[in-house]
C-alpha cells in the first residue's frame, strides 16, 4: 500500500471513532433534554401558584416591603449568572456570559456597583481567568439541579438583599440564564428578580394563567391574610426567589442539553462529511496507485519485448 493511501485510511479510522463518540453524546443529550423538560414542566404548578400569591399580596395590600419597593438610589446590585459545568455545548456558555457582561456594563453605567454570583464551572473559569471578583459560586449540580440546590444558591442572595447596602448588601437582584424556548431555540437573557415590579409579576402571571386556560386579565379577589400581610410577604418572597432560581436552573439545564445535542449533531454531520471526502481521496489514491502499477507493468513488459526482439535479430 502506498504511503498516501495509508495516511488517508488512518485519518478515516480516526474520524470514524470521533463520529461514534459524538453520536453517542448527541443521543445522551437528546434523552436528557426530554428529562429536563419534564422537570421544568413539573415545577410549573408551584411557580405559577407562588407568582399568583405574590401578586395577590402585592396588589391586595398596601404594605410597603423593602423587597417590593425600589430604593430611590440603588447603589449596589447582584447578578447571578447560570452557566454549565461542562462545555461541548456550542455557544451556550459564552452566550450566557456575554449577556451577563452586557447587564453588568449597563448596571455600572447606571452607577451601581455589581456583585457577581456564578453557578457552573464554565462561568467561574471565565471570570477567574480574567481575574474578576466573584462574590460566590456553586458548581456540580448544573446537569440535574434539585430544589435543595436552588435553596443553596438563593440563600446568600436573599441574605445580601436583606442586608443594608452599607454593610455589603444589595438593592437589586438580577439573574442571567438561558431560557429554554424550544428544542432549537434557547436565548440567554437577564431578568430582574428584586425589587419586584408588580406589573411584571402580573404579566408573567397572566401569561402563565392563559397557558393554563384561565381567562386573561383576571381580577384578583381581596384576600384575608393569615397571620398578616407583612408576615405573609416576609415568608413569601424568599420562597419566590428560590422558586425563580430553581426554575432558571432547570431551564438552563434543559437549554444546556439542547445546545449539547445540537453541537454534537453538527459534529457528527461534519465527521460524516469528512469521512466522505477522505474516502473519495483514498479511492483516488488507490486508483492512481493501480494505474501506476499497470503502466509500470506494461512499460516493463514492452521494454522486455523490445529487448528480446532486439536479441533475436
Amino acid at each position, binding site marked *: 500500500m502506498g504511503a498516501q493511501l495509508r495516511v488517508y485510511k488512518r485519518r478515516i479510522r480516526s474520524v470514524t471513532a470521533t463520529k461514534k463518540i459524538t453520536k453517542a453524546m448527541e443521543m445522551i443529550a437528546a434523552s436528557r433534554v426530554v428529562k429536563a423538560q419534564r422537570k421544568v414542566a413539573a415545577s410549573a404548578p408551584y411557580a405559577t401558584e407562588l407568582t399568583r400569591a405574590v401578586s395577590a399580596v402585592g396588589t391586595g395590600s398596601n404594605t410597603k416591603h423593602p423587597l417590593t419597593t425600589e430604593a430611590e438610589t440603588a447603589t449596589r446590585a447582584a447578578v447571578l449568572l447560570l452557566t454549565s459545568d461542562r462545555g461541548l455545548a456550542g455557544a451556550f456558555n459564552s452566550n450566557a456570559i456575554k449577556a451577563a457582561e452586557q447587564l453588568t456594563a449597563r448596571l455600572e453605567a447606571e452607577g451601581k456597583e455589581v456583585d457577581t454570583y456564578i453557578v457552573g464551572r464554565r462561568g467561574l473559569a471565565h471570570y477567574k481567568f480574567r481575574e474578576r471578583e466573584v462574590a460566590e459560586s456553586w458548581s456540580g449540580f448544573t446537569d440535574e439541579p434539585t430544589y435543595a440546590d436552588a435553596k443553596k444558591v438563593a440563600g446568600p442572595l436573599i441574605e445580601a438583599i436583606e442586608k443594608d447596602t452599607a454593610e455589603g448588601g444589595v438593592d437589586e437582584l438580577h439573574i442571567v440564564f438561558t431560557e429554554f424556548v424550544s428544542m432549537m431555540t434557547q436565548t440567554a437573557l437577564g431578568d430582574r428578580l428584586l425589587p419586584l415590579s408588580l406589573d411584571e409579576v402580573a404579566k408573567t402571571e397572566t401569561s402563565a394563567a392563559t397557558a393554563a386556560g384561565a381567562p386573561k386579565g383576571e381580577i384578583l*379577589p381581596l384576600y384575608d391574610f*393569615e397571620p398578616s400581610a407583612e408576615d405573609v410577604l416576609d415568608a413569601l418572597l424568599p*420562597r419566590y426567589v428560590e422558586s425563580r432560581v430553581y426554575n432558571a436552573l432547570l431551564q438552563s439545564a434543559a437549554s444546556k442539553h439542547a445546545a449539547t445535542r445540537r453541537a454534537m449533531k453538527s459534529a457528527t454531520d461534519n465527521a460524516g462529511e469528512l469521512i466522505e471526502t477522505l474516502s473519495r481521496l483514498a479511492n483516488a489514491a488507490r486508483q492512481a496507485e493501480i494505474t501506476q502499477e499497470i503502466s509500470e507493468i506494461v512499460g516493463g513488459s514492452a521494454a522486455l519485448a523490445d529487448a528480446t526482439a532486439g536479441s533475436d535479430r
Partner: protein
Amino acid sequence: MAAELHVALVAADREVWSGEATLVVARTTSGDIGVMPGHQPLLGVLESGPVTIRTSDGGTVVAAVHGGFISFADNKLSLLAEIAELSDEIDVQRVERELERAKAEGDAAAERRADVRLRAAASR
C-alpha cells in the same frame, strides 16, 4: 354555594395531589384553619404539620407538609409546600430511624420534620 372545592397540593418539584374536597384542615402559623367551600379568599403561611383533606367521595387524604402557603380563592385552594408527602408515601421505619438520629444529634428542625411525618403516617 358550591358543595365542593378544588384542591391542588403542590410541592416545589411536582404536583402531589389534586382533586375535589369538602374540607381542608391545615396548620398556619397562627393555628389550625379549616377551609370549606365558599370560604373567604385567604392567604396564609403554613407551619410544618399534617394537612387533612376530606375528599368529596368521603375519603380522607393526609399529607405531611413542611412550610409553605395556603391560598384560597374562587373555590380553588392551593397548598404550596417546598416538601410535601402523602401519608401513604411515607416510610415509617425510615422516618423512625431519622427521628432517632435527629434526637441523638440534637437537630431540632430534623426532629420536627420527622415528627410531622410520623403523625401524618399514623393518621392514615
